[in-house]
């Protein structure tokens, strides 16, 4: 049966306390990620700690974040920068622990656009399994070590097409023009 519900909003901190909590956690995280992350800073607006990481250090950064208490991934996606020839992997990692609940970690890593490869994080955070499948389907990022990297949302007709990338324009259809969906 529903246990005694935990006291709600009166006990929660207001936004200012949120910023203070962010400050406490920042040194704690940056010390843990000394050699791994190239840049660690806070983004007060979105109450998050932003980490820039090299491609081959992603797994290591993920392991340390997991030990710090960030236990699930809220969103894993790519951002396509065709002019810089880079697809940026952006991972929002959250935590259900009482202390870390107010804070999110945003892990960023640049992958080469022609052949984007990244280590699969399913081993550390199983919640990324479906999100990695969608990232592969939309951006072509191949996650090495993913249990079954197949299509999640799109039908099979999109073989070889990466709709998430900027060079995939949407076919702006003129009114009345009928397109045969199966052809």
């Amino acid at each position: 049966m529903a246990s005694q519900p935990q006291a709600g909003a009166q006990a929660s901190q207001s936004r200012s306390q949120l910023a203070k909590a962010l400050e406490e956690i920042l040194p704690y995280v940056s010390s843990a990620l000394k050699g791994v992350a190239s840049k660690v800073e806070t983004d007060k607006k979105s109450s998050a700690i932003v980490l820039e990481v090299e491609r081959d250090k992603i797994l290591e950064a993920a392991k340390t974040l997991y030990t710090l208490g960030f236990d699930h991934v809220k969103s894993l996606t790519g951002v396509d920068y065709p002019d810089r020839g880079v697809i940026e992997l952006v991972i929002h990692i959250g935590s259900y622990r009482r202390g870390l609940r107010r804070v999110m970690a945003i892990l960023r890593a640049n992958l080469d656009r022609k052949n984007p490869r990244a280590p699969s994080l399913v081993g550390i955070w199983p919640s990324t399994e479906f999100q990695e499948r969608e990232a592969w389907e939309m951006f072509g990022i191949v996650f090495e070590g993913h249990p079954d990297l197949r299509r999640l949302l799109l039908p099979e007709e999109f073989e070889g097409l990466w709709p998430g990338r900027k060079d995939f324009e949407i076919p702006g259809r003129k009114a009345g023009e009928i397109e045969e969906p199966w052809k």
Partner: protein
Amino acid sequence: MEGGLVFIGDLDITARKVLRWLIERKPLRDIVEWATAFSLWPVHLMTSCCGVELGAAYAPRFDLERYGSLPFVSPRQTNLIVVEGTLTRKMARIARITWEQMADPKFVIAMGACAIDGGLFWNSYNVVRANEVIPVDIYIPGCPPRPEALARAILMLQQRIKRRGIERHDLEIIEGSIRRINGGIARS
């Protein structure tokens, strides 16, 4: 009687021709049309988010069961498809198969702006118009249309059945030539 009718050839087609000849007679046709009009059972095919309004239409406030329409289980036993909202490519294939699995006098209501012409998602690469896939009888504008609009569509379909009668395609399907369905996919 327009000319003599001689039924020869394959038993199945002859039986269907006899049935169709019988049904076209006055008293029986009215009863069949009256029964079909008041027993439009939509198949359980929720294509997209307008399904919320279809659910609300069969709920206590706008009860569509007043007109005899009862959402039922499988395509075999129902005679109405309500295409609720957008048809993506994957769902279009399912809608087509469901339409082909349904028993013959069948009708389609395209509900919402997305089913008419893509609506909000007109330029999405994954969206297909309803009439490109299955022949549509009644269109309902609105995004999502109010449950009263769905009730009005059911009533319009009832009047159309009484006025225009039921077109039966079972002979064309058996003889292998699905006629060009208005705007739909032609197979010769």
